[in-house]
């Protein structure tokens, strides 16, 4: 745990140091919103309807306190999101009209977020400002779109069933629009940070957060309706569904993380056994994932690629003794293929990683053979090139040697290596030198 969190901390810090322009824009927008909201509050002479403001602020703060990290390093806070949406879409409190402006929604959300973040800061968990900024902007979008409508929808009389359905339709449309905007921004940030194409990044974001967004939007609407009709006491009761969702997702995220950690750790048994050089599996997997991204693979495929790259040498465990030197690219081709087959056989036994086994099995297949049958999967071609590069380079960082190795792979790329994959490797390496 200690080692794990430290690892995470370094990763977060490095993310901090390279803030991308999309991140800066979102943070700037959030800061501008907060400044505008505070100015408005000062001009207005304080908060309208203090009690609901405090209660929703507390709900948002609690949501921030229990935020969590989803696969792919995405920070989410479903309860906070639901609370902010509900406050933005509130029509009344138990039938008494509310008159808060969109600026007040922004101010209350921002205060709740800061309050919920303080405990995290106190235990030295650095806040993810970009994720918080995105949540604030999403809440602001909903508030700006819905607050003017609230005055039209609620005129002091209880709403009829039909008016409610109209209101619900508007709420659904607006929260969906906000969710899509949020995903777009997230995809922009991600595509810049990990150098993925925007379209692919957007689909990844959609897959990763659509369900959770739907759940928190539904709860936000539920809280808005329940509080409007029954007053603030209903608010606590109606957060129960999102609590269940949050609990379920927290466990899901934990298991996913553990799984990846286990595969990462156990891929090192080949190193401890002296079969491969120290750090080889990890380096090959990092390089492979970067190349896969360069070649436009989606997140699910990248995960399979990462698993396969980590375990690509696992077949060596079935050999009585390590191959001298350990570098498989220098071993006889029959040996390479035998290791790939043995490794795939081991992975197949899990019964759950069939695709990974296929990738590992095909990793020694040449890109093109004389018979013209369909070549190995892209992931296998990537691992083949990354593995060869790492075998020839070791942990050396010498640029000239790197260029020579790359030339060697290029020379072989008509037959052994996929030229597109080798070029992706070249681009990834180029960027590394620049950094």
């Amino acid at each position: 745990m200690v080692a794990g969190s430290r690892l995470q901390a370094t990763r977060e810090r490095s993310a901090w140091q390279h803030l991308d322009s999309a991140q800066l824009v979102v943070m700037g927008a959030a800061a501008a919103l907060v400044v505008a909201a505070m100015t408005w509050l000062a001009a207005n002479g304080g908060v309208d309807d203090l009690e609901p403001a405090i209660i929703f602020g507390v709900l948002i703060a609690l949501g921030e306190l229990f935020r969590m990290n989803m696969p792919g390093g995405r920070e989410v806070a479903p309860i906070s999101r639901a609370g902010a949406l509900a406050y933005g879409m509130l029509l009344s409190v138990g039938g008494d009209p509310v008159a808060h402006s969109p600026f007040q929604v922004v101010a209350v959300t921002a205060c709740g977020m800061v309050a919920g973040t303080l405990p995290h800061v106190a235990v030295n968990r650095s806040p993810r400002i970009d994720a918080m900024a995105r949540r604030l902007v999403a809440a602001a979008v909903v508030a700006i779109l819905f607050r003017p409508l609230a005055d039209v929808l609620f005129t002091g009389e209880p709403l009829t069933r039909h008016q409610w359905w109209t209101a619900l339709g508007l709420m659904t449309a607006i929260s969906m629009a906000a969710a899509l905007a949020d995903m777009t921004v997230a995809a922009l940030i991600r595509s810049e940070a990990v150098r993925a194409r925007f379209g692919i990044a957007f689909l990844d974001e959609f897959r990763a957060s659509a369900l959770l967004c739907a759940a928190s939007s539904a709860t936000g609407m539920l809280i808005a309706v329940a509080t409007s009709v029954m007053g603030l006491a209903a608010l606590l009761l109606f957060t129960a569904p999102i609590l269940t969702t949050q609990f379920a997702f927290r466990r899901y995220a934990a298991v996913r993380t553990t799984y990846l950690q286990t595969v990462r750790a156990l891929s090192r048994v080949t190193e401890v056994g002296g079969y491969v050089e120290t750090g080889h599996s990890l380096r090959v997997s990092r390089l492979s994932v970067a190349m896969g991204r360069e070649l436009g693979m989606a997140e699910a495929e990248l995960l399979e690629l990462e698993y396969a790259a980590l375990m690509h040498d696992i077949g060596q465990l079935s050999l009585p003794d390590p191959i001298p030197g350990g570098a498989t690219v220098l071993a006889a081709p029959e040996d390479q293929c035998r290791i790939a087959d043995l490794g795939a056989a081991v992975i197949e036994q899990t019964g759950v990683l069939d695709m990974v086994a296929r990738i590992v099995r095909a990793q020694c297949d040449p890109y093109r053979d004389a018979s013209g049958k369909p070549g190995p999967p892209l992931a296998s071609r990537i691992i083949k090139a990354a593995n060869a590069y790492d075998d020839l380079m070791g942990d050396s960082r010498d640029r000239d040697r790197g260029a020579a190795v790359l030339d060697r792979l290029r020379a072989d790329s008509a037959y052994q290596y996929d030229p597109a994959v080798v070029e992706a490797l070249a681009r990834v390496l180029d960027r590394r030198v620049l950094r």
Partner: protein
Amino acid sequence: MPVAGLPLAAWTYVGTVVALSATLMATASYADVEWTKLAAMAVLFLVCDSVPALLSVERARVSLSFSACLASVVLLGPAGAGLVGACALFTWQRVALVKRVYNGAQFALCGFVAGLIFDALNPDLAAAPEEQILPFAVALLAYVTCNLALVWGILLLSKSATVRELRAETRLLAPGLLGYGSFGLLIAGIYGTIGAFSAVLVLLPLLVARWAFAQTLAQQRAHEATLATLCQAVETKDYYTRGHSERVSRGSVMIAEEIGMGRARVEAIRFAGMLHDVGKLGVPTKVLQKEGPLTEEEFAAIQLHPMRGLEIIREIGFLDEALTGIMHHHEKLNGRGYPMGLAGDEIPEFARIIGVADAFDAMTSTRSYRPARSVAEGVAELERCSGVDFDPEMVAAFLRALDKVGWVSPDQVVAPAEAQTTRQDHDDPSTPIRVSGEGAW
């Protein structure tokens, strides 16, 4: 629930419940029931019933339709709630006819009883929802109790479950039933305002949660399968140690459960047992295969394996306590173990547990230099070393667990000629590794 060949008592029981429920439903007054609400709740019940169950154990499934049942208790009163429960007759799940009829009858009965209780405690229908919480809680409790009692009744009478199994399943099911039932109050609470949309808003997050639960389960299984497979891959170095990790894992869990460890810690020790020997891969094959005494250097390589294991799995976050267990599983109570020579209580609890299971499995498995010992011989050896090498408390717990659940020894095998075997087993306390120039360890 097996259908054919139900005992007579079970048939009588089914008949009684169905007759009782039919009589109640036939004589109830339907004057107050709002038919549009009833139709909405019935549709909700059937729709929820068709989505995968939220919670599934061997003999029962809890689906979101439970929320619909409880919502109808509030919205429709006893007669209406009974009718919604009776919709279980028309479930889309593939269920035998007897079971269908019985389920319909028992849900109707539960709905009717809970409805009566709710009405008795909450005469004012227009009360604010927070005032309805207490009556609803009582009605919910009655519904769940009634439901479990009726289902367990038929399972016991048809002899398809024992009391012990049912008690364990109740512990699993009851929180789920209470939880999903209580969402019924939320649906009912704003049904008057926005109609059927309330069900969508309440149930959508729950469906998403269900998806996450299912994913969690799938990932957990995948994780376990991967872990087990990789451990097996490590074991291929020695034909005779195949399955050793799995058995040590099982033995450690037996001890942990016997001494009353919490669920999370039992999970951790299961993985620790599985992974306790991964570091052995760092021991050169020629050392493991060497015949006769080892040099000090070679023995040092063996002694280092817990540390190598630690090196590998240090980064797996969930294994906090398991790490120390793996690192110290060869420490002895008298301080003569390795790698650090800890003694007595200095040795972490996990390590003391794994040490016992590890030694026992090594003794009861075949080795290249001797056949497997019987379980009785293994027990005798454990008792002999108890207090010297092993923690007596853990040995005693292991022996108690052994009495209860037994031990599956590996098959008595002779390795095929081409298989890799080793001559040195570091786990076997009855045949200590000999190091040249020293006495036995």
